[in-house]
């Protein structure tokens, strides 16, 4: 599995990882017991600091989303209740709120903004249901 990491983004790298794992679990692309790539593998792949990856994984462990398995590394926790539509909305909402703020600041109309969002959705390929990795 691959993260999408943008080092120049205003979101700290550890947060980018945390948010992506939350989304992958919420959308069931990662299920209970699924292993995450090792700290070392992620750090080497993106040429980032291993401590950053560690920090993200530890936070997710504290949240109860991940468990540390001896000799394996991090895996998705078992007792994770299936995410409701509500949970997923909660994850999407902050990004939309900031889009809404920019829309207002630029004085773009509601319908124009909605059309733009639709075209963004079309540009982004839909993932196949069975495509887990």
């Amino acid at each position, binding site marked *: 599995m691959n993260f999408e990491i943008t*080092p*120049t983004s*205003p*979101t*700290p*790298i*550890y*947060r980018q990882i945390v948010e992506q794992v939350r989304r992958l679990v919420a959308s069931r692309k990662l299920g209970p017991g699924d292993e995450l790539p*090792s*700290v*070392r593998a992620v*750090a*080497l792949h*993106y*040429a*980032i*600091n*291993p*401590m*950053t990856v*560690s*920090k993200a994984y530890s936070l997710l462990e504290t949240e109860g989303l991940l468990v540390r398995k001896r000799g394996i*590394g991090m895996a998705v926790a078992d007792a994770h209740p299936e995410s409701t539509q509500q949970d997923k909305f909660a994850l999407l909402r902050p990004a939309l709120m900031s889009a809404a703020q920019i829309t207002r600041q630029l004085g773009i109309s509601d319908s124009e903004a909605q059309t733009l969002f639709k075209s963004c959705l079309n540009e982004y390929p839909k993932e196949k249901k069975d495509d887990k990795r």
Partner: protein
Amino acid sequence: MTNDNPIIETSRLSMRYEYATVLNDISLSVPRGAVVGLVGRNGAGKSTLLRCLVGLEEPSQGSAQLFNCPSLDLTDAVRERLGYVAQTPDLFEWMEVTEHLRTIGQAYPRWNEERCMVLAARMNLPIGRTVKNLSGGDKQKLAVVLALAHDPDLLLLDEPVSNLDPITRREFMRALFLDRASEEERGANKERTIIISSHLLTDLERVVSHVAFMRDGRLQLFDAWDSLLEHLRLVPQPTIDVPRAALVCKNPRDAQCVIDTRLAPEYADAGRILSLDELFEELNA
């Protein structure tokens, strides 16, 4: 990161020459495992600070310590744990690269030829060539491999990547953590501490845990990069009075302010977040 003794510590370090003050009252404390990006304009004092840290220059005032050992009197045990890349590295021009690597390697008990050659290969260093025939970039690679090959616990790097192409720079960033990531994962308390000066801020953003901004010989700002990214905001023209402590800097040209919202929560949503590039510009405006 553990809260034991800092790996690098300076106390009121100053360096004055007849013509200028190059370092001005620098107190810095770098914890174990930190990767510090040292940034500032040309002449801000970065190289002098690094040279004072490794004991190559004697400060006019104040002191520096590495692993609790005075920089001016480093023990062999501490030296063996250091890797330093100078801005203009001193190399043995007449030697072949392999010979050069081995000669320096002999001085370090922890030097490992295999690790050294793997590193050289990853960085694409032409090991059969004589040093004097290497390009500027390849000489820089050699200096970096020399600094890393004995698996140092503390790396001090002065503009180590300025002559390297983007692909080699990426490889260099990986090399900084090579051998260490797995140990870190096992929870061993052996993280490498790194201080690296560079103008290539987008490269630094990938790897730093902390940033230290210098201007005119002073340490302007030192903090965890994640915290700065999350808490500093660029506010065009603050309407309410900003508490003095929360004002990181104010642009004399357009009165834009960088505000630390941890100390001024009322600004938490004001203005916008800054990238490392932008923060650098504002701090030097």
